[in-house]
């Protein structure tokens, strides 16, 4: 029988994977994708818990998280494009003009 714990564990794993990606990947877009993975992990948690808890709030939350994800995607990718225009690069290593 699959309990909520299974789902929570699964999302925890996905969350960890996403984090790993954010920490390791150089390509800005991939980093962004990894963040999406994290958000999705959270979404899974929400839905699972909302079913477990027995009310809709969690799923509503997911609904909004998706909206936010979309919005962030738009803005984030726009930023990436702007950066790319100036620097011809998508490498996160390349944005360290500002440091120390």
């Amino acid at each position, binding site marked *: 029988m699959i309990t909520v714990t299974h789902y929570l564990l699964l999302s925890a794993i996905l969350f960890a994977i996403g984090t790993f990606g954010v920490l390791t990947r150089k390509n*800005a877009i991939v980093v962004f994708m990894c963040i999406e993975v994290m958000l999705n992990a959270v979404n899974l*948690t929400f839905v699972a818990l909302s079913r477990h808890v027995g*009310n809709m*709030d969690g799923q509503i*939350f997911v609904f909004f998280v998706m909206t*936010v994800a979309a919005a*962030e995607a738009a803005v984030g990718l726009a930023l990436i494009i*702007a950066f790319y225009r100036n620097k011809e690069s998508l490498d996160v290593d390349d944005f360290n003009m*500002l440091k120390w």
Partner: protein
Amino acid sequence: MENLVQEAIQNVNLQAVMPSLILTVAGMALLLVAVFSPRGKTIHVAWLSIASLVVAGIVTIMGWNDTQFGFAGSVQLDNFAAFFSMICILAAGLTILMSDEYLKRENFPVGEYYPLILFTTAGAMWMVSGTDLITIFLGLEVLSVSLYVLAGFFRDQERCNESGLKYFFLGAFSTGFLLYGMALLYGVSGTTKIYDIGAYVQANPDVTMNIMFIAGGLLMLTGFFFKIAAVPFHMWTPDVYQGAPTPITAFMSAGPKAAAFAALIRVTFVCLEGMQDHLTTVFWVLAVLTMTVGNLIALSQKDLKRMLAYSSIAHAGYAMVGLVAWNEIGMSGVMFYMLVYTFMNMGAFAILILIGRRGEENLTLEGVSGLGYKQPLLGIAFCIFLFALMGLPPTAGFTGKFYIFAGAINAGFIWLAVLGVLNSAVSLYYYLRIMVHMYFKDPQEDFSWVKIYPATALSIVIAVAGVLYLGVVPGALMQFAKMAGF
């Protein structure tokens, strides 16, 4: 079906969101205005947005002392919210005042800039007045997303892109933790309305033993820690502040930070009260870390914007001392401090705007050598802000720090207070260094490019007035901060 509609309509209470509503509507309207106004002609948009801010402010003040609930408990416009809303409005107003000429100088006069600031402010308001995790989250996102845009606003300047990107990625990353925490809290309490969560914790206290609850609370707080730039979630701050357009930096350091503090305080004191023992420790450690790291690194900074960025980290640390106190004095102290900080920090940044060249390559210590002689008034104003940031009487910085440390000491956190004052002693050094260059060194250059932009000057005057007023007769506003606590 009908009754559902009735119910839906009953839930709506525009009073509760009036200020943010005004700003949003104004923002949308101004978008149109901006679109149809010729390129480079943005001044009227600026003034209109200020007007809308003023209106929103008035509405907020009128709503003082009459708490508005609405939207099925997802928002609550009480004194607390009103106070922070006012801080955000103030910050936004000052930002807009100091923006127009700046945008022209940086050769990027885009009208959409102002609506974005208005939306940011509205987001901040939802954040401070939200009583539902969802509202708070969405407010936060509105705030953040528009700030991502504003931080990277000069799309053809690399440092702007960079600061925008860093802010965006790290922001989104922290959002993940924030959400995870909220999810856990939701799972533990079965609701997203923070007062219900609080009630739930009240009802069954053993939940505070539940590590899922604890983990959820902490994870959520890390999201806010990121926004208020508490160590170790602070690292985005210097880069983003340095790269972003200066008015936006000023705004970020005041408005959103205040909003984040507000949300932090609300969730902490409403739904995480059960975790007081844990949280006090966490705040204690983070406060000390934040102050210390911020001040120490600031010691070795040459770039003024970056130095102020680090100093703002340190100030967040001071403010957190008020949270550690975990009593009314501390809480109101934080509010008052945020107000004070808005004045003094934005004033300082306004000065930087005036003395900066195009591209702001010259905002270094050497860059201001002898400024005090070439631009006496600017010099005096800058000194006032710096003394305020040091926390020296008779400026607001002192009264603010006093309020906070009073809270800590009242609660018995003597040693925290001692560490705090020692930190401000350390901080003296780098603030003094700015003055050393302004007055004790001979002018390198004649600062011929410095033009006293009227609007920016006005913002500086307002800031000076605020700093001195809050420094000499702070009683009234301290009283307000006291009433705003809950």
